[in-house]
């Protein structure tokens, strides 16, 4: 590595910018901001039926309760009572008279303390006229209830291809939902300022949407609402659209009382009243040859969307876009249904439908392998995207950048997959009660918002007279290290130490009209936008030096805190001072839009993704056939991050994403009772992985050969979502273990709780 490469701010494992604050408890989250003196605390009352009309909503006792200063219902909304992120007008701030899920907000109060507010909302007298509740996908399909139109993606004649294949498999797989369980629940604080304007502090991935939603509901122009987000205590998609409602409620109450209002949800209410990952029913039918190569495939997706559309359409679309995962499907027919249910509206969650889509095809591959009696990894490999013509996706995009053959082979070698598979079989021979399984599964994940216009980002960079730099962009920090990565890009552009770049809170006042920090595209887009801003300023400095020193542009270099021109070298700050005195602007905005992408949804055809991110994992598991209890014994991961901007941050996404995915597929189960109430609304009943669920043998590595073929920021690749899907290897391995126990592979649904594992074993033994 050359000296200058070593000093580069990018491609280095620098610590998260807030790490030292995190460990001391000094990193401020919304609830930690010193409270204004006259702050009121809001809380909301919710429905206790899943579906019905409100016959009576008596709030007299609520109004009279100790400490209560204001009570609002939908009748108090002056603007548009519409919080739908896609303007579907199918979701108000509060249920009007029509309740559509158990836990739906009906009204809210502001009181002098949070405790009093929480007590007050329990005093409401509510009577309902219950109506039949459609809670799950099957019921919605039967009733023909949908939030939006079905969608079809089709290439070739799948039906025909299946019929003409020597063998075929078919079945149904159910994948469960998932609560985000961000450790910091939803929270917003709204402070009225001059002219009826509102200053909003919120925990949201999408400050612009919070701003616009408040403006719409309160009938204000957007310029009257400023939304600021310094950091979130986790989000994972759960604060993309669903942070807005709570900010709106606080804003309504702040406006009504003229006082600052904070609304922080209790964990149980958060889990009950905010949306989750969509659960899916996936029906499949696939025809294949004797090598296990798929000739044709049909998928039927049905997603539980909840009571409104929210982001369900693009989520269900992304499931379709990933129904192929890494495999070439010569003929494919994918149809997708977006079911309306009387449950909370489901929303974005890391992977955004992609994981569900992939689960379908990975199950198909496992079934084919079982049918042929071969190693599933060989079937996977036989189906990988390859050279033309085996490189066209069901949506007619050419896969030009697949690295999976190479990456997976390396992983198989390094993890000792083949030998360990033999060991697993030997273990299963000699053990009656405990059975093991091992699986290698790949991930190919499309990067870009599939709604093309969302692929834009802005940044604002100031250089102050002393050479210190202020960085702002539209991306938000939820723990993924975005701020650190973009600061690295900026430090690199100016050749200054990272510490010279000040990371500042995301605010709609500095960078407007931003897209949610989502789709893994945060550093790709904001890094580019920030770089553009830096380059504008650097160009001006360069112009100045060319002028002042009579040097040529190519002789000017920004590095190691200095600016070198010709033989001379000067401190960055010294030059900045002169640039300022020469009356040259040291502030610039930057903008980026992702190139090359286009998509015609009507035709289901185009290039929705700029590129693909790749990775693969090998997981080995053990089950107890008496109880269904299970453990992950070992995990090996190889993941392509391109030329990583920050290997430490990327490793964090890989390991963290994997474990979150493993939780989704094993212990995290959402359970509704017969009244349509979600009963797993607390960590006591909803079980995300703990430290003990992560095996000692957990070997994640970044693929050293990785390099993005496209012109992304420093040739890096997005890494936020893709690793979650590496955990499909755990599910697949559990399936292998179930088969080893005489169970039925196709009976194993997700999450593979001890109960489902035991059921799948029983199903096989019955046959």
């Amino acid at each position, binding site marked *: 590595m050359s000296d200058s490469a070593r000093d580069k701010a990018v491609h280095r494992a620098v610590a998260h910018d807030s790490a030292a604050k995190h460990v*001391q408890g000094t990193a401020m989250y919304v609830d930690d901001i010193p409270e204004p003196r006259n702050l009121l605390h809001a809380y909301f009352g919710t429905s206790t039926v899943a579906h019905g009309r409100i016959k009576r909503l008596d709030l007299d006792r609520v109004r009279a309760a100790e400490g209560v200063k204001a009570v609002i219902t939908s009748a108090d909304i002056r603007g548009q009572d519409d919080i739908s992120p896609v303007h579907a007008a199918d979701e108000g701030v509060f249920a009007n008279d029509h309740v559509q899920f158990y836990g739906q907000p009906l009204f809210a109060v502001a009181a002098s303390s949070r405790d009093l507010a929480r007590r007050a909302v329990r005093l409401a007298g509510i009577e309902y006229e219950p109506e039949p509740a459609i809670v799950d996908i099957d019921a919605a399909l039967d009733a023909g209830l949908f939030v939006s139109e079905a969608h079809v993606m089709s290439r070739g004649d799948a039906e025909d291809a299946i019929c003409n294949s020597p063998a075929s498999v078919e079945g149904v797989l159910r994948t469960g939902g998932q609560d985000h369980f961000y450790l910091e629940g939803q929270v917003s604080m709204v402070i009225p300022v001059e002219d009826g304007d509102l200053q909003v502090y919120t925990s949201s991935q999408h400050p612009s949407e919070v701003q616009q939603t408040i403006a719409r509901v309160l009938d204000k122009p957007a310029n009257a609402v400023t939304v600021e987000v310094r950091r979130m205590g986790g989000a994972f998609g759960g604060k993309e659209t669903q942070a807005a409602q709570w900010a709106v409620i606080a804003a309504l109450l702040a406006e009504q009382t003229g006082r600052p209002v904070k609304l922080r949800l209790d964990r149980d209410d958060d889990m009950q009243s905010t949306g989750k990952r969509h659960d899916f029913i996936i029906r499949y039918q696939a025809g294949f040859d004797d090598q296990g190569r798929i000739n044709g495939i049909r998928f039927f997706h049905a997603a539980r969307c909840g009571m409104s559309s929210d982001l369900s359409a693009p989520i269900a679309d992304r499931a379709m876009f990933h129904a192929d995962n890494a495999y070439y499907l010569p003929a494919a027919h994918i149809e997708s249904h977006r079911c309306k249910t009387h449950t909370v509206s489901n929303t974005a969650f890391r992977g955004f439908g992609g994981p569900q889509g992939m689960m379908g095809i990975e199950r198909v591959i496992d079934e084919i392998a079982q049918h042929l009696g071969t190693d599933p990894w060989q079937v996977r490999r036989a189906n990988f995207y390859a050279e033309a013509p085996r490189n066209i996706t069901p949506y007619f995009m050419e896969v030009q950048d697949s690295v999976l053959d190479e990456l997976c082979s390396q992983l198989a070698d390094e993890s000792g997959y083949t030998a360990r598979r033999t060991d697993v079989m030997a273990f299963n021979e000699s053990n009656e009660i405990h059975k093991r399984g091992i699986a290698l599964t790949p991930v190919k994940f499309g990067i870009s918002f599939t709604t093309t216009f969302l692929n834009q980002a802005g940044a604002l960079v100031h250089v102050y007279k002393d050479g210190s730099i202020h960085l702002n962009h539209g991306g938000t920090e939820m723990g993924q290290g975005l701020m650190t990565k973009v600061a690295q890009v900026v430090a690199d552009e100016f050749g200054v130490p990272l510490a010279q770049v000040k990371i500042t809170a995301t605010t709609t006042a500095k960078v407007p009209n931003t897209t949610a920090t989502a789709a893994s595209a945060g550093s790709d887009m904001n890094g580019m936008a920030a770089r553009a801003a830096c380059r504008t300023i650097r160009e001006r400095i360069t112009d100045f030096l060319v002028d002042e020193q009579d040097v040529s542009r190519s002789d000017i270099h920004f590095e190691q805190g200095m600016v070198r021109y010709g033989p001379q070298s000067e401190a960055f700050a010294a030059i900045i001072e002169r640039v300022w005195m020469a009356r040259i602007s040291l502030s610039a905005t930057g903008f980026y839009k992702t190139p090359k992408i286009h998509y015609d949804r009507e035709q289901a055809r185009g290039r929705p993704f700029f590129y693909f991110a790749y990775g693969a994992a090998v997981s080995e598991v053990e089950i107890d056939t008496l109880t269904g209890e299970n453990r992950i014994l070992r995990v090996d991961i190889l993941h392509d991050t391109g030329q990583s901007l920050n290997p430490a941050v990327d490793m964090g996404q890989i390991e963290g994403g994997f*474990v979150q995915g493993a939780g989704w597929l094993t212990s995290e189960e959402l359970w509704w009772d017969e009244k349509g109430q979600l009963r797993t609304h607390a960590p006591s009943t909803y079980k995300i992985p703990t430290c*003990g669920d992560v095996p000692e043998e957990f070997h994640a590595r970044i693929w050293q050969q990785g390099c993005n073929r496209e012109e992304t920021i420093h040739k890096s690749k997005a890494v936020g979502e893709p690793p979650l899907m590496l955990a499909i290897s755990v599910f697949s391995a559990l399936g292998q273990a179930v088969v080893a126990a005489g169970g039925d592979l196709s009976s194993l649904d997700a999450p593979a709780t001890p109960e489902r594992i035991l059921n799948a074993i029983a199903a096989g033994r019955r046959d």
Partner: protein
Amino acid sequence: MRSKVRFHLNGELHEVQHCPPTLTVLDYLRNECRLTGSKEGCAEGDCGACTLIVAEAGSTGTEYLAMNSCILFLAAIDGKSLISVDGLALGDGALHPVQAAMVEQHGSQCGFCTPGFVMSLAAMYQDHDQQPYSRENLNLNLAGNLCRCTGYAPIVRAAEQSLVSRDSTLVKELDQRVTTELEFLESDPPLSVEGTNGRVFAPRTLAQLLELRKNHPLATLVAGATDVGLWVNKDLQTFDTVIHTGAVAELLEISKENELIKIGAAVRLRDALPELIRHYPSMRDMLERFGGAQVRNAGTIGGNIANGSPIGDMPPALIALGARLELHSLESRREIVLEDFFIDYGRQDLKPDEVVSAVLLPIHDDGQFACYKISKRPEQDISALCAGIFMRLDRDAIEEARICFGGMAGTPSRAGQCEKALTGKPWRRDTFESAMQALKEDFTPISDMRASAAYRMRVARNLLLRFFIEHDVPERRMQETSSVR
């Protein structure tokens, strides 16, 4: 008598007049002291984001216990020393070794869980037994800390980095300071708050406790508050009068006489664990998976029984072993067999003026015993069902079978028909198979979010089978290498 709650927080003496009976330490820190380092992730003792260290005098020196401040009432820390994340960094502003390791190993992402992890690790760092680092021990200590971002791997690396070799000077310095603080408050008279916000008592002797119990029949007894804390935070229950049992000397004793272990009702799970597993090693798995460290550091044996829960983990094991319960009122003392305490769902044999004072557990040196805890997630999860199985053999016949299940009925219940199908029968697989069938006459379990009725029944049967397999004669005993446990 004393009306101010007194304790040290990060080296400073705090005195709280008119302490509200259910004010939690977390709310005190965040709202009263504006110390916002400790986070609220759940307010129900399950995520660990609010973890801090409660230091107290132990028999062999000062002990440093990680606890969940969200369900810890202020009066419960009377006389103790608290260390919160806000005060962990060293005097000169340098990071504590566990903090430094968390930074160096990239152990934080969103950072919201981080203060809790830091405090759990700091408690391990300061642990006076100085247990050697192992991943297994780490898992036990972190089971009560949830992280949604990192997948734990970097936290494990940080733990390893900081705990493998500890700076003994640092440990000693803190220990000296805290020990002095504890000594300073040692001779405080018992706490007795009768103020505008309600009454809080923390008696020191059984006699004082019984007197208070009699005078305040509506008072709520609080031991570790790992149940009561949730009623306050989630159901918004208010208590006018609270009596803490945590300082009552007799309730804190563990003694052994005549083949009987007597465990005081206020003995915490962590303190009962060594003695229990010395005699009944099979309890280890259940006890180590009972809550997380924070819950075991606060929750008591008495609380686990007195709450009357059908899914408490202790009762099935204790009932199978023939434990008795000691109940005291000012006027009388009585003993009942433990299963008789549980009358029905939500109803126990406890008079308004009585307290549970101890569990009396026979030490069997003949017989076979096993205890099983089945949950969706291995660590810190309430059981879907749990079982205690005890059998005594006479040659090849089953002389006595005591089988108790939790999670199968409204109370922890003996499996009478199943026991009958075993008693006097030969120790053989087919005997067990008919006993497994008999379970359906004993129980009609319910379906809920933890498991379906069918699963509960199937697994209850399989646990009997497991008992048979695990205790069969050596040449037939199942020898499996397993990593599930």
